[in-house]
Structure formats: structure tokens, C-alpha cells
């Protein structure tokens, strides 16, 4: 069973996307920092190694703003399958939240809707980590790599990096990761 979940937001422009993005900061930085990595869509599209590794090593929770499901499709474009897809609009409906209460362009993480959506997404993460539907992905490779990747502190690109200064590429033992993946027959990103 995986020890982390990759949060992969659509990163669109509409209100729901902004709310989802902010909610994922809350999940990743406040609620479940050790159980999540934060995937960056454009970086994944550009084959930034860290983001490619994230979707290959961990089950992906795609967080979508609309029915276009761009995050889910992007993961598929990179030859993986999202373990679960949640749509912000549906989560808000489920929680009885009104989109009208959310400002355009930017919403503070303290906003009640952001906090409520973040908590619901954190529940999805916990379900995936404890064997819920979709938890089977990826094959048992993540434990091999525990401590090597995904805690964000050794990341060069920063999808998972905190706001601290970027660290050297050498801090990130990608060669070891690649070796581990080769040993268990995982496709290189």
C-alpha cells in the first residue's frame, strides 16, 4: 500500500480551480504534509522528473474544476491512471457550499469553503492510503523509495517544495530512485 498520495490539480482559471488549488495547499502544507505530494500540471506536461516520478510512484488524486477533467487526462497522457478523480463543484455541492461565496481570481486559505473542501480532500487521501478504491496503484514500489523522494525538501523543481530556497539537484537521489525503479521493473519517466 502506498504511503503517500499525489495531489494533481487541474490548475485552470475558473473559480473552482482557484478554490481547489488553495485547498490543496491546505491539505499538503497543513493537514497531511507527510502523506501527500503536490503535483504540478505544467511541470508534468513538460516531463519535469519530480512530477513524472510522483505519478509513477504514488496513487494520484486528480482534483478537477470542471467536467473537462484536465488533470485526469494529463495523467493519462503520461501513461498513468488517476486512482480517483474529484470535482470541486461536486464536493461543494456535497458539503452544501455556495460558489457565490467564493471570490474570483484569489481566495484566502482561511476561507470556510477552502477549509471545508480541504478537509474533504484529506478524507479522500486517507481513503486511498487505507485501501479504498484506487488504492492499489502503484505497485509496491513506493515503500522501497520511502525517504528518497516526495517529502519535498529535496526537490529541485518545487511542486512539492515548500517556500524555502530551492535545493541542489544533488540533494535529490534520482539515480537511486531510477535504480530502485529499474529493480522492480517500473517504467522510467
Amino acid at each position, binding site marked *: 500500500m502506498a504511503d503517500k498520495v499525489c495531489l494533481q490539480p487541474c490548475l485552470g482559471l475558473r473559480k473552482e480551480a482557484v478554490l481547489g*488549488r488553495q485547498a490543496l495547499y491546505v491539505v499538503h502544507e497543513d493537514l497531511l504534509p507527510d502523506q501527500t505530494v503536490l503535483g*504540478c*500540471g*505544467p511541470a508534468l*506536461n513538460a516531463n519535469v522528473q519530480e512530477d513524472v516520478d510522483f505519478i509513477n510512484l504514488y496513487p494520484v488524486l486528480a482534483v478537477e474544476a470542471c467536467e473537462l477533467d484536465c488533470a485526469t487526462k494529463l495523467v493519462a497522457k503520461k501513461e498513468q491512471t488517476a486512482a480517483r478523480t474529484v470535482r470541486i463543484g461536486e464536493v461543494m455541492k456535497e458539503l452544501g457550499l455556495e460558489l457565490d461565496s467564493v471570490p474570483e481570481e*484569489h481566495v484566502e486559505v482561511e476561507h470556510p469553503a477552502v477549509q471545508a473542501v480541504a478537509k474533504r480532500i484529506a478524507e479522500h487521501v486517507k481513503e486511498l492510503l487505507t485501501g479504498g478504491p484506487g488504492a492499489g496503484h502503484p505497485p509496491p514500489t513506493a515503500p522501497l523509495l520511502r525517504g528518497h523522494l516526495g517529502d519535498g525538501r529535496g526537490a529541485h*523543481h518545487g511542486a512539492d517544495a515548500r517556500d524555502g530556497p530551492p535545493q541542489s539537484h544533488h540533494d535529490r537521489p534520482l539515480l537511486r530512485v531510477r535504480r530502485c525503479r529499474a529493480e522492480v521493473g517500473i517504467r522510467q519517466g
Partner: protein
Amino acid sequence: MIEETDFKVAVLPCNGIGRLVSTVVRLAGYRIKRLRPDQVVLLSSGRLAVKDPEHVAAFEKYPVLVIDGCRPHCASFMADELGKTPAGRIYMADVAAENRISIAGDKRRGLTGKGEKLVNAVTDKAVAEIDRIIADEMLSTL
């Protein structure tokens, strides 16, 4: 400001999430659109990455200004992937250096004054680029 509305620029901010500059780029995108509402088509990198037809059409139709937040230059990658040379490129580090703005200490979840300064600087630079690109397009038709 250019009054002609037939000419537009498709603006492609990377809209990433990982870096502090990701937030700067994202907010700049909205401000650019506000300042040039009739000249700017704001593209979603998420939709473009999966070749959403509406976004691909706008990308193909108009000259493109890409705004890259961090070193992998993901917005530029996307333009290259779709086979188009952007009419303009802006890289956040260049803007920060030109304006001597440091945003260290700000948070990606919400900017303070320093981050806002950089948002304004990149917005100003982008608007100037948009005006230049449109002028170039217009003059090439005369």
C-alpha cells in the same frame, strides 16, 4: 492603449502550483486580462496541455505571449509542444532581476506586499509586450 479590438494576443501563463512564483504568474494573468480585456485571450495551461479544442484554436489563431514562472519553462515547453514559436516570452526571474524585487519570505498560498510588487511588475511588462505584439500585427497588415 491600442484601441483596435480585432487584434488579440493569447496569453499563456504557466499557472503552476509548486513555486512561489507560480502564484505570482497566476495572479498576473488575471491582471493582464483586466488591463487589456479586449486584446487578451487568457489561456489555461491545464486545458492546453490536454489539447482542449477551444484553447488549441485560440492558441493557433492568435500570437502567443508565454509567461514562465520557474526554471523548467513549462509554458514555453507547451508552446513548443504545440508547434508554435511564441511572439513574446516573459520569465519571472528576469522581471525580478530587472526590477530588483525579492519575494523571499512570501508564501505561495497568499502573497504579501513583496509578491504583489512582482505581480505588478510582470503585469506591466506583459501589457507592454502585448501592445508591441499587436502593433507589430497591425503594422504588418498596412
